[in-house]
């Protein structure tokens, strides 16, 4: 990329300066760039701003999708407070945050460090790249397809998991993984860990590439073992990546929809319902549009709060890093 930059730059400088033109346009130069924003502004207004405002507005009304909405003030939100289905779905969101943010980040960190620091150095980067690709593979799979694959593996009769258990003599462990209300949520969580793990891993491995190898060499000379190097070099050095990944994954966990739709449809008996599936059914199956809008508005507020907190933590960490605290090894 730098090569291109220099070449273009060199050609530009070689030409004759056209000073009249420069003077003529300099007055408006800054703001006429605004024109380039015009298509984007129109498109965003139509597809994001207007629908979002409509949705928020509708959440204060009683509307079934036909006729004109009737203003009902905070009635929908008050009803939400007493709706156990609503509270359950948000409690399940916390489980999803564990399965899609906490566990993949923690496991991803250890895996990334092991692949980078151990496999990459001892067996060559080829091995590390192939293993990384294996872990990343589920990430490119459409969530609907991942759902099909897993609902078939977890099927009670003839499902692969139950067959494996029988084959290794653990037949008594067989379960109706997605059909038993006590287990279904954990099964969905397991699938989501499988889906999500590759993302933190790849980001962390990329982050590790900018860590100065001398840090590791120095630590090794001082006799620090793998675990101490992991704790005192790897984790602090890629802290920015950890914050970004945690924020992104938490938001993704709060939005999870496709997996629940395909795996369990929120069932059995609401055991795996999540806010986004709850709002979907309220919109399109119960056609209580006002109520569904209230659910999605609450979800939006929570997601924006998480994003802001994530952003804040991230910038604070960056500021702390800029301060001259010296290198800790």
């Amino acid at each position: 990329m730098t090569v291109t930059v220099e070449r273009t730059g060199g050609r530009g400088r070689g030409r004759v300066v056209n000073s009249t033109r420069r003077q003529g346009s300099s007055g408006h130069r800054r703001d006429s760039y605004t024109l380039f924003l015009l298509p984007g502004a129109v498109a965003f207004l139509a597809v994001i701003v207007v629908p979002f405002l409509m949705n928020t507005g509708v959440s204060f009304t009683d509307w079934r999708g036909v006729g004109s909405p009737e203003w009902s003030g905070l009635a929908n939100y008050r009803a939400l407070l007493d709706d156990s289905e609503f509270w359950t779905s948000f409690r399940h969101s916390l489980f999803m945050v564990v399965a899609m943010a906490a566990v993949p980040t923690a496991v991803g960190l250890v895996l990334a460090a092991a692949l980078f620091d151990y496999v990459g150095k001892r067996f060559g980067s080829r091995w590390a790249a192939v293993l990384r690709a294996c872990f990343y593979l589920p990430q490119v799979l459409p969530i609907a397809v991942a759902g099909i694959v897993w609902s078939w593996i977890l099927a009670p009769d003839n499902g692969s998991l139950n067959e494996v258990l029988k084959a290794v003599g653990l037949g008594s462990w067989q379960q109706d993984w997605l059909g038993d209300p006590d287990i279904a949520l954990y099964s969905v969580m397991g699938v989501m860990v499988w889906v999500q793990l590759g993302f933190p891993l790849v980001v962390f491995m990329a982050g590790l590439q900018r860590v100065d190898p001398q840090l590791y060499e120095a630590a090794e000379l001082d006799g620090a073992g793998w675990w101490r190097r992991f704790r005192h070099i790897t984790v602090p050095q890629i802290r920015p990546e950890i914050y970004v990944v945690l924020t992104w994954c938490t938001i993704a966990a709060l939005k999870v929809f496709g997996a629940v739709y395909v795996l369990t449809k929120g069932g059995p008996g609401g055991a795996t319902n999540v806010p986004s599936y709850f709002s979907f059914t309220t919109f399109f199956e119960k056609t209580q549009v006002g109520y569904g809008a209230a659910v999605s508005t609450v979800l939006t507020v929570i997601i924006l709060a998480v994003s802001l907190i994530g952003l804040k933590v991230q910038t604070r960490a960056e500021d702390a890093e800029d301060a001259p605290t010296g290198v800790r090894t």
Partner: protein
Amino acid sequence: MTTALRRYPVLIALVLAALFMVVPFLIVAVNAVKSPAEYSANGPLSLPEGLYLDGIKDFWERVDFGQKLVNSVLISGSVAALAVVLSVLNAYAIGIGRIRGRTWVLAFFVLANMLPQEALVYPVYYLSKEAGLYDTRLSVIIVFTVIQAAFGTYLLSSVLGQFPREIIEAARIDGANKWQVLWRIVVPVSRPTLGVLLVFFFIWTWNEFLLPLVMLISNDNQTVSVALGVLQGQRLMDATMTNAAALLGVLPALVFFLAFQRTLTRGIAVGAVK
């Protein structure tokens, strides 16, 4: 083997873990080529006795899978191209033009990017019905062009913010107008980043589920994801059909993965930390 185990315990553990990640793909591939009789006789874990492709063929014809592929390619391809153009225009104004109030404009795009689709889906559904665009591929293309461009604008703005200004100044002095600077200098120089965005937008749109599920109800317009998801949701498929469906859903993803592996892993690094 035992000496290997003793010498490389970490490597062996990692290989086993990686295998666990890939096993579902292998099971699907193995079972998609079994006949129903063989499947019910031997269960899902046996190796196939022969190559039975009728299951896949039946499924393909039954759901008109070719049409679904065309729809997915059309929608994802259009979205990727249009969203990159829109992102470039926005980012040119913000990152290079440094328009007034750009921090707020950028904050707006970041917010738009975070917004859950649940908060847009009903009005988008309602408005597209009013506009006569409901159940058309065009409606999905428009919506996702904007949604993907929110991320693209955010990413490209910071990339273009570091664009060497001397080059732009030099071209301006040469008499190039802003439009020419954009297409002849900024876009060619930023091509690697734009390529990453293009690939990402394509795959993200390919994998989208909620909005296409709501917007595309007729069989002729559905994408691969939606068609397979709906079939699964209806619980109408037997085991062999499910396998065929899973295999046909997995294959395009595998193709993208193999084709774009480098772009994908490099692109994530670009996206995650500015």
